[in-house]
């Protein structure tokens, strides 16, 4: 444990670490595993002292886009062994269900964070070269030669350590302290829905055999079957529905999900822990790099939980960063080049997705273009397959639209003529 760490930090003779990662959750630990396995020395600074700590307010859904990164870390098998489910995605729309043909539907991953987080953190802790500092909070950033060069951290006993590193990584979530201290540019986008959710036992999810979301336009809710025969139920209504949820979170959630078309059997279930909510989900998109510093996961892009992309993108952005900076940390190029490569990759992969997600997060209804695509996907299996590939974030909007829009027009014209 940190306070009994036998190795005092090396001061003066170059940085002690190749990378210091702030935040020991999914993105931070994934980066630590990858850099550690590459033979680098990594410190992970996590303010929670409990190795079993986990993120409570999370849909825990991992889109199919994140699965390859998890597999590459060697975590897919342990996650499945721990009870992780591999659901397809089904979406209710007023035009019918959007379900890609089973052989073409991508499979995501569901394992409760209570199980997932300790599993990923444990793997990081066992990786040679990775030092976990649990119960340490960042006080300030260290600076050197005009760039960032690690952090000063303090533990609960008041002991302070300077952790010098060539690369500082902020993996500390939506309200990132590292982002704040480094003053990287940030754009915020209003979020006009709120979220309540919880895990239920009992009541096989008859209308939710897979990860199922209802696009009630503008309301939204979902049922995700997960490990141990539990189901995660969530609702993301517009803010006018907030009073009833604040008053009785569980009753309001049960009522909301029971009243939707082809409702899941939430009333037959029982919440295994209190239903909790998050009301402010202002989206933040930050420039993911600064000299000597990078942001990953929600610290780089905290977007709308409605689309279940956060966990997957945590693993993916961790992978992009590790791959981008490895040559520099090995001394083959400048760190600046590596960080620039990461910045470009992050923007290319997620910029388009973020644009559409932020726009829908205003609480608005589907716009005509979205209605065209949703309705076509509900009516045509090929459109559904394309929609699925996009919705599970395996292709970018720029790749999806030239293929889906013409098909959607054709499908809807055919539908109108057939009536």
């Amino acid at each position, binding site marked *: 444990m940190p306070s009994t760490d036998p190795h005092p930090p090396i001061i003066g003779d170059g940085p002690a670490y190749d990378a210091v990662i702030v935040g020991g959750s999914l993105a931070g630990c994934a980066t630590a595993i990858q850099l550690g396995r590459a033979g680098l020395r990594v410190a992970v600074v996590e303010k929670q002292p409990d190795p079993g700590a986990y993120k409570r307010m999370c849909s825990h859904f991992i889109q199919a886009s994140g699965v390859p990164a998890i597999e590459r870390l060697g975590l897919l098998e342990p996650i499945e062994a721990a009870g992780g489910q591999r659901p397809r995605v089904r979406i209710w729309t007023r035009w019918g269900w959007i379900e890609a043909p089973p052989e073409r539907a991508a499979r995501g991953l569901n394992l409760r964070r209570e199980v997932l987080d300790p599993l990923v953190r444990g793997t990081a802790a066992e990786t040679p070269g990775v030092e976990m500092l649990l119960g340490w909070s960042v006080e300030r950033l260290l600076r050197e030669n005009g760039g960032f060069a690690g952090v000063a951290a303090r533990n609960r006993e008041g002991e302070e350590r300077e952790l010098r590193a060539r690369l500082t990584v902020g993996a500390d979530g939506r309200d990132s302290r590292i982002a704040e201290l480094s003053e990287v540019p940030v754009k915020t986008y209003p979020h006009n829905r709120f979220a309540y959710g919880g895990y239920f036992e009992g009541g096989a999810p008859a209308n939710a055999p897979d990860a199922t979301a209802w696009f009630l336009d503008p309301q939204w809710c979902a049922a995700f079957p997960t490990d141990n025969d539990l189901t995660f139920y969530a609702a993301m209504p517009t803010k006018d529905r907030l009073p009833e949820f604040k008053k009785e979170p569980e009753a309001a959630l049960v009522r909301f999900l029971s*009243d*939707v078309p082809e*409702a899941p059997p939430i009333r037959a279930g029982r919440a295994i822990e209190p239903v909790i909510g998050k009301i402010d989900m202002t989206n933040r998109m930050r420039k993911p790099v600064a000299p000597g510093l990078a942001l990953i996961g929600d610290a780089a892009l905290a977007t709308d939980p409605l689309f279940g992309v956060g966990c997957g993108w945590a693993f993916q952005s961790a992978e992009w960063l590790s791959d981008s900076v490895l040559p520099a940390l090995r001394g083959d190029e400048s760190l600046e080049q590596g960080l620039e490569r990461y910045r470009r990759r992050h923007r290319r992969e997620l910029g388009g997705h973020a644009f559409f997600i932020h726009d829908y997060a205003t609480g608005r209804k589907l716009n005509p273009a979205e209605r065209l695509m949703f309705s076509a996907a509900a009516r045509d299996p090929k459109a559904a397959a394309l929609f699925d590939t996009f919705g599970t974030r395996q292709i970018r909007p720029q790749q999806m639209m030239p293929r889906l829009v013409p098909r959607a027009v054709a499908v809807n014209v055919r539908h109108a003529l057939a009536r």
Partner: protein
Amino acid sequence: MSAVPAQAPVERRSLLAGGTRTRLVQAGPAGAGEAVVFVHGNPGSADDWAGLAGAAASAGKRAVAFDLPDFGETVAPDGFQHDVPGYAGFVDQALTELGIERTHLVLHDFGGPIGLAWAAMRPDRIASITLIDTGLLPGYRWHSLARVWRTPVLGELFQATATRPAFRFLLNRNEPRGLPREFVEAMYDHYDRRTRKAVLELYRATDDPGGMSEALVGLFAEREVPALVIWGEHDAYLPSSYAERQREAFPAAEVHVLPASGHWPFADAPETVERLLGDFLAKLPAGSA
């Protein structure tokens, strides 16, 4: 026409009340003094309620629904007053004729003002109230179609040109999921000359649909009338923001805003509405309120 088959057998016969021969849809223990009474809106008829009458009967209750005069297939007698008091008076005569002393009102659309006005006449007979896309509407300004109906000449012109395709288009345009085809067709079948004329008279006689709200809020709140409120979130005529406001009159109301429904939740989400009404009725203590 109901969108789903009723759970309990539904009987259809005719009923003479106050000089009007109306169509009656009935289910459950006939002759019971306590009954679920359905009042339809505009355009609507006793047929709207066949599915829900079955659900109410399955909850052990007698259920009755009838055409209001000049709606459905029912012809109003000469001199019938097509306004809220006139229709409330008809409801009173029908219930007397049916021997119903304790009433669980289920109201939709214009059946709201009519049913609530009747409830104000006979507060002692109310056992519970279910409001479906209707209720007390303080500050409500008529929806655009109603404003057309209320305008002399324009209203007549609209009614004269409301052909079947136009009617179908207008109705479905405002419904998030569209309505079952047979439901819309039956509605149009009943939208004949008499009904069109009655609609104009009824809307023109109702200057302020929220007018009686204030007086009624006190009446119901004081009596703690058990209430169920069901509202389609996408209702284009009576905004769903009124759903929560029904608590002003019914503080203990169970309120359900159905997130994928429009103005006719019993047509676009029949299973949900039947479940909510059935559960609500089953939960009421016998002889409550």
